[in-house]
């Protein structure tokens, strides 16, 4: 979304806290992500009543409860379509989707390509902890096969997916990656995403100390490398190259890609304009077409 168009207010991060208390485990990376969200909302002066926070099901999908805004807590994997509908219904408002790796790329994986290629004007923050948190620790599409989890006591049989490469391939117009251990960077990336007009995607590595024994804070610290200075964020090929990771397997953090193209609501509005549509159109003209 582009929050630029929104009514501006002057609030502190804590003003975006709702009255519902946070239920995540101590040490969970999500606490940091939530703070980054509060921070970017405050910095952008987003008016809560023009914000819709929408999620599916998972620990991460609890986020909307903790944000002062309009919000929906939907079904596992279905935040995308619901958010798309909400955005198209209210294109002047901001839509923020938050969810997990399982929610977004396993059960919700069929919706991702279409939101991105249609350039639905919203921000999607994916809390990537390489595990199903809420259901107590099964492997997710971003789990490494080394992980011994609930349904994979002997390790997993699958190669993990690459969220950034997926989103670049799908045509997301803003693609970034953060790490919960770097809240300042996360806040910047989320802020950029909220300011971007079009489908913006931020992948945030986040430790789940309760169920993911191998993707620890230390592991992620070793894993990530800042996007190199001078990286051209308008170059899709370069962004893909970065997303594919370097020879040592380091994962880039920072902004990888950002371009502008018409959003879905704009393209739909263009159809309305093309046919000369408007609220006051005389429906009798349509009925007439059915006379014998």
């Amino acid at each position, binding site marked *: 979304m582009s929050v630029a168009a929104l009514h501006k207010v002057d609030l502190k991060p804590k003003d975006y806290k709702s009255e519902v208390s946070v239920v995540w485990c101590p040490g969970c990376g999500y606490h940091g992500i939530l703070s980054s969200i509060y921070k970017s909302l405050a910095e952008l002066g987003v008016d809560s009543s023009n914000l819709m926070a929408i999620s599916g099901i998972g620990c991460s999908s609890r986020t*909307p409860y903790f944000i002062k805004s309009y919000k929906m807590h939907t079904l596992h994997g279905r935040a995308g379509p619901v958010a798309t509908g909400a955005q198209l219904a209210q294109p002047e408002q901001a839509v923020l989707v938050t969810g997990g790796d399982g929610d977004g790329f396993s059960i919700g994986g069929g919706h991702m390509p279409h939101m991105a290629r249609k350039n639905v004007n919203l921000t999607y923050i994916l809390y990537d902890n390489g595990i199903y948190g809420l259901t107590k620790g099964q492997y997710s599409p971003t789990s490494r096969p080394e992980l011994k989890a609930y349904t994979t006591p002997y390790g997993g049989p699958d190669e993990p997916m690459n969220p950034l490469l997926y989103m670049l391939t799908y045509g997301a117009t803003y693609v970034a990656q953060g790490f919960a251990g770097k809240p300042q960077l996360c806040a910047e990336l989320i802020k950029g995403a909220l300011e971007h007009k079009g489908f913006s995607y931020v992948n945030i590595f986040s430790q789940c100390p309760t169920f993911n024994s191998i993707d620890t804070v230390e592991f992620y610290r070793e894993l990530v490398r800042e996007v190199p200075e001078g990286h051209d964020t308008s170059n899709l090929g370069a962004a893909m190259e970065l997303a594919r990771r370097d020879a040592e397997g380091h994962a880039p953090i920072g902004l990888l890609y950002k371009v502008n193209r018409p959003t879905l609501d704009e393209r739909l509005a263009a159809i309305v304009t093309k046919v000369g549509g408007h609220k006051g159109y005389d429906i009798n003209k349509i009925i007439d077409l059915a006379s014998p």
Partner: protein
Amino acid sequence: MAKNDLIIRVAGEGGEGVVSTGDFVAAACARAGLEIYTFKTFPAEIKGGYAMYQVRTSPDRIYNQGDTFDVLCAFNGEAYEVNKHLLKPGTAFVYDYPGGDFEPDAIPEGVHAYPIPMSKTAKEMKSYRSKNMVAMGALSVLFNINEVTLKQVLTKKFGKKGEEILNFNLQAFEKGKELAMPLKKTDPWRVADATAPKDVIVISGNDAAGMGALLGGLEFFSAYPITPATEIAKYVATHLPKLGGTLIQAEDEIASIGQVLGASYAGKKSMTATSGPGLALMAEMLGMAFMSETPVMLVDVQRGGPSTGLPTKHEQSDLFLAIHGAHGDAPRIVLSVEDVKDCIDMTVDALNLAEEYQCPVLLLSDGSLAFSTQTVPRPNPADYTIVHRKMWDGEGTYARYKMTEDGISPMVNPGTPGGMHIATGLEHTESGAPSFKAETHEQMQAKRFGKIKPVVNRYKPTEVDGEGEADLGIITWGSTIGVAREAVARLRAEGYKVKGFYPKLMWPMPVEQYEAFAATCKKILVPEVNYQGQLSHFIRAETSIKPIPFTICGGLPFTPIQMMDRVKEII
């Protein structure tokens, strides 16, 4: 029956102009002030294959496709083969001969045969495409199809394509007339004479549902294509943008119902349309709409099931899924339409009920109505009331799921200061906060169930056809109602004491109305086009009635005579 309530069946190869012939005849009759009710079957193949289009026309109101044809016009040998067992004494038979691809067997005693060399004439005119025009010319002469209105219709259609094309078609039409003129008419069938033209439209069930959506104030539509529901989306895609609204084709049915839920939450009147397989996929999200009390509307155009089944065929077998298709206790309001007029009016109703009761509303149509075109009084937009959801008045602290007397909690649209809240599929308190306490769940379920209960009294009462005591009452639903209406009328004319009860509100069931009706009948027959007798099941479960189920499931609607025969057997 009057000989001018007649059924003309045109049959041939898909692509030979079967459909346009039927459309022209139907439109011409409608223009001449007559009623029409058409019925089609489609080939299973993408292109070609056997196609059938039947027009029933009468000066009086028509309720169904009829028993069988009075006039058969066969374009090719397959059409003849498929239909020849229906060439009963008294029927008229127009066929492509000589020069067609077949020669019929000996014409049965009493069948009135009119050979017309359609293909040959078309060939002479060097245009295969004119074959159906030739046939139409002949039909118009033989059966008194109004020539003036028929020409108007042709002009309307071909005029757009330029004078040359129009003239060529009119020429072929004249040829057909000439070929028929010398034939001696021996049958009694003739289309009624033109009367004062009525203010009607001719429209299919699917287009009508689309039109109803526009009349109902629809603002957002999302769907995924599926036979036989796609034309609703097509109609809406064509016209909704004119009214400033939005249609999108989603990546699947789960996405489309999800988008509808999201758009509705954000304040727009929203709906989708699908058929059985799509409805099955939407089960989870419909439960979410119930739990989060979000208005969503869905049209299910039923087709032959189960599974992929018989996708182009008629069946009314989604009632179980429509009413019971959710995990947990999560009912919906379920309506079903009888005819094309209902497709318009009840789409408006369904949109309104969703807004009023803040819950999912399902409107059931079926494969035979989807493509049946019928004459419908021209809808006057001013006649339709558009109901909007109850909105928060801005006073005090907003609680989305506030307990109110009628169980309906005011809503608020995103963008409204002070109204921020969550819509959720988790069990919740009045404010929307998650709560798994026993009391919360029991109270909230009672609220959600309680609020929709009044619909049984507030929705239009179920129509009772007939008065006083009867030996047998027919209870049926969907397009089978139209068949029952005629069966009841004809049985009554024959002296039988029969009545009809035609529910449109399928769930919650207006139990008292069922009981009151049944109290006046010695027996209750429930005809429906499905295997299990799905309405019978609900009648047994919810009322004290002991219905006699009467089910068929061959992919075709009932005929009046079939229903009459059954009534006579058991009365």
